[in-house]
């Protein structure tokens, strides 16, 4: 294993954990179940790791991505919430479609 890569992964994970802790009060407003919150957290973490590998981000300190992570979390949870509200009826029948991803600006 590449030692530098391991160090970078750790740096990213630490920033994620620290930032996510601050986001909890915001996320709690959306009244997610424990499972929903866990899954959202996983999605956000996977996104954050890939975000840190985009050109221009690879060498920047992970701490400089805190703002981007907060924005992604807020937009993501808001979009999920809107999808859930819109599909409340069909979800009750157990046929809920996959939630849409935000940022489909085109």
């Amino acid at each position, binding site marked *: 294993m590449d030692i530098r890569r391991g160090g970078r992964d750790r740096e990213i994970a630490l920033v994620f954990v620290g930032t996510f802790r601050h986001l909890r009060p915001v996320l709690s407003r959306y009244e997610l179940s424990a499972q929903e919150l866990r899954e959202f957290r996983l*999605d956000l973490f996977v996104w954050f790791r890939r975000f840190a590998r985009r050109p221009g981000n690879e060498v920047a300190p992970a701490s400089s991505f805190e703002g981007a992570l907060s924005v992604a979390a807020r937009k993501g949870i808001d979009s999920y919430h809107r999808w859930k509200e819109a599909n409340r009826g069909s979800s009750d029948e157990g046929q809920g479609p996959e939630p849409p991803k935000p940022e489909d600006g085109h």
Partner: protein
Amino acid sequence: MSEGNVRRFHRRLSSEEAKFAAECLLSVPIEERGGKAQDFYLDDPDAILPLLGILRGKLDTSPSLVRDEAEYFYRFLEKEVPGLPGELFLFDERNYFLGDAARLAGIACRVLSRREEARRWFDLSESWFLTTIDPAKNLSLLSYQRLALLTEERRFEEVLRVLPQLIAAFKSFEMAEDALKCRFLEGQALRETGQLREALVLFRETCRESQALGSGKLLGWSYVNLLQIHAFFGEVEEAFQVACEATPLLRGLENRVGLAKIQWGLGTLLRSEGKLSEAIEAYRMAQKEFAEIGMSADVAAIHLVVADLLLDAGQEPQARWEIQAALPVIEEFKLVPEGVAALSLLRQSLQNPRLNRQALRDLHGYFPDRDA
């Protein structure tokens, strides 16, 4: 949400697997892929990141391939309807990858002198990046490409007006290599406006800074620029020394564009020493390399230089042939919008017993040398 997540994590690739998937895709010619893009994980962000990285690394080796692959990927992703069950893109990723693919296609088009096409890709890229999270870095990288395009169109005043802000932006993002790349545009503006000594000083600085950053790529381009200026001044020893440093470095990086430009510089050097046939041979080698890479504009530019040399050698019929080979490319690519008069004069003179040499030189003067 849960069903999608299960699929997502089931499909995730390790970084080695993702790189392998990207290499597999590139080893299959586009026309043989049919509708099997998913087989190469082209819908998986973990595979797309290394794919775009590999393509970025091939810009100086095979710009035509990068253009075709970036367009292929862009068209594939454009067709993917966002929000389908099992989709692997999270948050802004689809838009980000569309923006990055369009930017790559645009850069490749710029290197190939397809300027209008490059501009259209850059506009598309910007429209996708604007809807991503934290777009400032990507928009700055796009600004650099637009300035590089303006440099190639010899719109130096506009370039120099914007460069300081862009350099400051890159520095604030801690993107030191990109800040340094901006200085190359400044150097090219100096060189093309006749401030060659100032350009020489600048490229010596970029050499030092590239070494300090550990960027072989930028060091290679610094050498290419230094060689061209030394060659112009006929500074044989300095030019030869730079060529010796540059050649193994560029070969190691598979920078075929840079190697062709080194050959071009050697042609200029030999010409300055009055060695006409050797100079023509060096130019021909550069031209062959440019032709193989698909850089038609540079092939055309060398036709004009060789025509001028052939006139020096009293070989006017051959010179006419060189000019006739260059003119269709210049017109097709609209390479010298500001040199239309020279182009027209040269074309007219092909009908006359004597070629208009001044028009030939003026026309060649409108071709900037592209770098970085």
